[in-house]
């Protein structure tokens, strides 16, 4: 077993356990902190996959922004009766567990039948990936449309979210 494999196994196990904590913790702040752990594990995986740009993006976007927003929302909506006591799950918990296990085994079985399932990474120079990505994002035969659509999507999200969350006059009193 190579050191890289050890690092991978450690990361994968830690982040999967953290993910299980995310969906089972009653205390939502704890859940959010475990979510941060999982997301960090995914960032480590991106490094192992030689995509360091996505690894830092993962940390900047998910840990730096999305997780913070989640914690903010948890604190803005914290209800005394809601998080410390009471059951975190709804009535369908058994069904949910069953379907999660089903989806997992389905995915593994389906992918297991694929010829390249246990492929080994080809030796390749990945250092130019960021420049290549930037070029592709702004090229007419690349993803320039997706680039602009992403911008529109985020603009829409910003406008929509502010519209939804901004208190109307009637609510203020």
């Amino acid at each position: 077993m190579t050191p890289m494999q050890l690092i991978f196994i450690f990361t994968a196990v830690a982040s999967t356990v953290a993910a299980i904590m995310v969906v089972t913790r009653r205390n939502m702040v704890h859940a959010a902190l475990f979510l941060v752990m999982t997301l960090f594990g995914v960032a480590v995986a991106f490094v192992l996959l030689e995509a360091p740009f996505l690894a830092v993006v993962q940390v900047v976007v998910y840990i730096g922004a999305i997780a913070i927003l989640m914690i903010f929302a948890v604190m803005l909506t914290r209800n005394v009766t809601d998080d410390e006591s009471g059951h975190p799950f709804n009535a369908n918990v058994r069904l949910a567990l069953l379907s999660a296990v089903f989806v997992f085994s389905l995915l593994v079985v389906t992918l297991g039948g694929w010829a390249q399932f246990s492929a080994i990474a080809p030796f390749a120079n990945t250092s130019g990936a960021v420049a290549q990505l930037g070029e592709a994002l702004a090229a007419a035969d690349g993803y320039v449309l997706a680039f602009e659509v992403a911008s529109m999507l985020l603009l829409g999200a910003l406008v929509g979210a502010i519209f939804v969350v901004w208190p109307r006059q009637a609510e203020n009193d």
Partner: protein
Amino acid sequence: MIPLSWYLVWAAALFAVGLFGVLARKNIIAILMGVELMLNAVNINLVAFWRYLDVRDITGHAFALMVFAVAAAEVAVGLALVISLYRRRQTVAADEVDLLKW
């Protein structure tokens, strides 16, 4: 070296855990966290395929970035709805908000 299958199985596990969270949790914010886990699992797959199949084809990277954008938009609007809902109904439990059920 790490075979591709490890990444795929791990991503499938994360996806399943996220799915369980989405289906089973009461708290809407927890459901959104489950969605984030599922999106992350997708991202691992995209990047793993990029690395293991063809490094010159940057599609995996580009789509992973799109997933980031979609995740951010989803969280922004979703949490805004949760906060707005909380201020009107004093609840963040998904099964207490079933006005659109019928």
